[in-house]
């Protein structure tokens, strides 16, 4: 009965789309491992995906509102982790954002994205009024800056930057007056030249090379250039799995993580890449659908945050491989290899499912012991919780 009910409410389209992406990821990582003659990468990927799936299932069965309840605590905990990693962490590839315990490396900046979205959803759902006021925006600004600054200090500018569009999307849904709606993006644009002075030299170079590819064909722009060559040489149908020599022979950097889309496009061509991108679009559209049918404001904000997070990850990563934006180290969800990243994606996915399962707040099986107001009814946040 219970399971029957669960299955009736389950979002099969989302499930299928994500399963498809995970499969593509596994196949691609397998071929990369085979190409390098090192299957431990493939095994680790499988383990991480397995752990992610388990975690995802667990989260589906937990009401997302539990996390919302403890959002501030979780936020402070991750902020503490971010601070610790800055002090005691290990540097890998120029970013000091890793904890290493035995063979496992863990990156707090990844999970911090989820706790950040949780705390934002929690804060926004408590605000009444059609539009956000300057006071609210200042607090949101502070909530955003805290992890952003910490992550930037770790040297992982790309991950830090992803917070900006996410927070922009959430506050836009939360309601921005016209002056803010124009003001905030303008302010961000104005701030960006200022941030130039905080950039490391190599980061500046990357930006300059994207604007002017002829600047240094052998040096900084090399990665981007090689990735474009890989994608372009794939043609319509690709060179076949495992045949992407441009990528496999090491011309494209970081094919297992940031540039996995390059090898995918090289080996499966335009056809394969479009299928993958369509799957992502399906996932995103399903997220919006979940948000629209969510039982409460918190759910909406949570899903908007998650959807925009995934959207910007996909859009920036794919643009990065095609040379539209400079390589800033944003991986591709479910395809790129990476422990913390994979776990974070599954956690976020689990929450999306969780919101979906509880869209009919009244009939919520999991919280049947509580009387809950009908959805769409205005009520202060504390009314949702009878504790």
């Amino acid at each position: 009965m219970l399971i029957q009910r669960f299955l009736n409410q389950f979002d099969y389209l989302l499930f299928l789309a994500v399963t498809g992406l995970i499969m593509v990821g596994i196949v691609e990582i397998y071929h990369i491992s085979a190409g390098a003659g090192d299957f431990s990468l493939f095994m680790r990927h499988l383990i991480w995906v397995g752990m992610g799936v388990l975690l995802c299932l667990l989260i589906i069965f937990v009401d997302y509102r539990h996390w919302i309840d403890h959002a501030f605590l979780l936020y402070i905990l991750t902020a503490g982790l971010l601070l610790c990693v800055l002090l005691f962490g290990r540097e890998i590839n120029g970013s000091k954002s890793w904890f290493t315990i035995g063979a496992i490396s863990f990156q707090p900046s990844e999970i911090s994205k989820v706790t950040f979205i949780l705390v934002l959803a929690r804060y926004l759902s408590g605000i009444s009024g059609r539009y956000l006021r300057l006071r609210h925006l200042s607090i949101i600004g502070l909530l955003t800056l805290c992890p952003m600054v910490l992550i930037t200090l770790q040297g992982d500018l790309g991950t830090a930057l992803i917070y900006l569009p996410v927070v922009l999307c959430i506050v836009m849904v939360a309601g921005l007056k016209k002056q803010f709606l124009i003001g905030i993006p303008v302010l961000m644009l104005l701030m960006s030249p200022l941030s130039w002075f905080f950039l490391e030299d190599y980061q500046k170079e990357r930006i300059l090379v994207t604007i002017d590819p002829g600047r240094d064909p052998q040096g900084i722009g090399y990665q981007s250039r090689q990735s474009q060559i890989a994608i372009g040489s794939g043609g319509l149908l690709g060179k076949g799995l495992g045949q992407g020599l441009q990528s496999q022979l090491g011309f494209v950097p970081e094919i297992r993580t940031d540039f996995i889309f390059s090898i995918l496009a090289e080996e499966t061509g335009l056809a394969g890449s479009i299928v993958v991108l369509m799957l992502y679009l399906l996932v995103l559209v399903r997220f919006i659908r979940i948000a629209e049918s969510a039982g409460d404001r918190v759910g909406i904000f949570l899903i908007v945050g998650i959807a925009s997070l995934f959207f910007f990850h996909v859009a920036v990563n794919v643009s990065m491989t095609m040379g539209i934006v400079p390589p800033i180290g944003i991986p591709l969800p479910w395809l790129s290899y990476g422990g913390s990243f994979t776990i974070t994606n599954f956690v976020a996915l689990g929450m999306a499912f969780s919101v979906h399962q509880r869209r009919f707040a009244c009939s919520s099986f999991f919280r049947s012991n509580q009387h809950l107001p009908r959805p769409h009814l205005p009520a202060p946040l504390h009314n949702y919780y009878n504790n």
Partner: protein
Amino acid sequence: MPIYQDNQELIQRMRWFRIIFVLAFIGLFAKLWSLTIVDFQFYKDLAERNRVRTISELAPRGLIYDRDGRVLVDNIYGFNLVLFRDVIQDSNETLDFLADDLKFDRDTLQERLEDSSSYGSDRTIVLKENLTMKETSYLLARQLEHPELGISKNPRRLYRYGSLAAHVTGYIGEVSKKQLEQDEFKDNEAGDIVGQFGIERSYDKVLEGDNGSRRFMVNSRGRVLQNLDYVEPGRGEELTLTIDLDLQVEAESQLGDKTGAVIAFDPNTGEILVMASRPTFDPNQFVQHITQQEWEQLLANHDAPLQNQTIQGIFAPGSTFKIIMGLAGLEKGIIDAKTSVDCVGSVDLYGNRFHCWKSDGHGHVTLREAIQHSCNVYFYSLGQKLSLEEITSFARRLGLGNAMGIELGGEVLGLIPSEEWKRKTWGEPWYVGETISLAIGQGPLLVTPAQMARAVGIIATGNVPQLHLVKGEAPKATEKTLLPTPDFSAENLEVIRDAMWSAVNEGGTGQAAQIVDFEVAGKTGTAQTISLATREKLSDKDAEPFQPNAWFVGFAPRKDPEIVVAVIVQRGGSGDSGAAPIAREILRVYYEKHKKSKPDSMELVFQIKRKQRS
């Protein structure tokens, strides 16, 4: 405060998201389309070039032989240090390694690198030629640390005899940026070695081989993973010249350090046997990346060593012109063999006194004696009877001022004066007195040694030989180089030949060219470079640079001539002492060589038998 909040409002705001997502993905699709479909071929080629490394193997150029099959221009193989620019990370680091570990000169390497900046990116740069075995093995051992460096085996041009016949063989060099824009070099690319001068230049496409290549699959660090294929370089075609090495050696050694030129050819076939020019250069200097400094030195040399004096040097013919004057007089019927003139050492014409070189005069001389002793007065009186027009048209019929179409190109035509030319250039009319000077080869008439030699060839055989340097069929005369066979009467030609013979063999001015048993006929010339009046004003020392040019033109043997020779020695003094002995030595070598190699009767029998069999 009344609170009204509705999820519906949030949902309204979210509508934009779908649109933004879809638009963004359409943007990504569009970029994907442009990469994979529109620019597919471009990126495919780039990917190919990325992982396939091509080492081109320069094809050896064809060898160049002399007429007897002796190698004049050879190839030797050497190991070159090459740089793969697509793999290079930090050129400074690479250069440091080479400078520190192998003691190569860093500046030279740097210069090479900069010189090659226009090469295609997949083309290797030769950093250093002729590595020693030790250097080669050292570099090969460090291949893993320096995958950007490689060793290639390359043929290198070797001019076996150095400066010998340098103006004929010419030299090679890297194709220049300017040349690449020309049609002639449209098939070449930056870094190619092409002929730059002489036969190397004019037969470049023949001598040039097809470059071979070796292709490897490499990874992003330039490490070779697999050999793909190997195309063997095709050697260029061989070329046999008409040059006779023995005669050429003799001519070159006779010229020594003198400034001048020697040309000798077979008047029956037009095959050039000797072509020597002084000053000269060593074409081997050009084989190995000539430095800017060396190049400028060559260009700055006052005597123009890169100029081929035989076809590019122009000189007044001096007394050698008398044979042409004599022939003109005979042909015009103004004189005959018996006409005699009394030479008293000088003659007054048009108010000027014209001198003979022999101040007390030759007495009564006929044409034969006038040529034999090079009597000026005889030709002054002949010049008085001929117009400028008549003289120059005769000179032209004998090929003076006419292109010859020798395969080297860059021929200078010389100068045949005319009244119109005088007016245009000097703004003065042609004075009759100048015709008198012209009659003894002085004045504005300028010819190249090769033209003079051909004129002698025409007199010797009555036919116009097509002079050429490459064995085989002589190049066809073009409209520009065509010289119709002049229909001189055989009798008149014989008079001139006889006079030339007597000049050498009967105690004339050319007796220094006499060879026992080899009937040499010839004419000397002592062409003044300043007028006698000016010469008298100068001290002997000051006059040194204005010494007359010594000429000798001749042919041998007198009957059925086999060889024509022209010698000019600049500032060589008189023709009988400055040029005739050089001609004699060349003719002597020719005579001795061919006297011995004449087949005896038994050999003839064998030859006939061999022919019958085949």
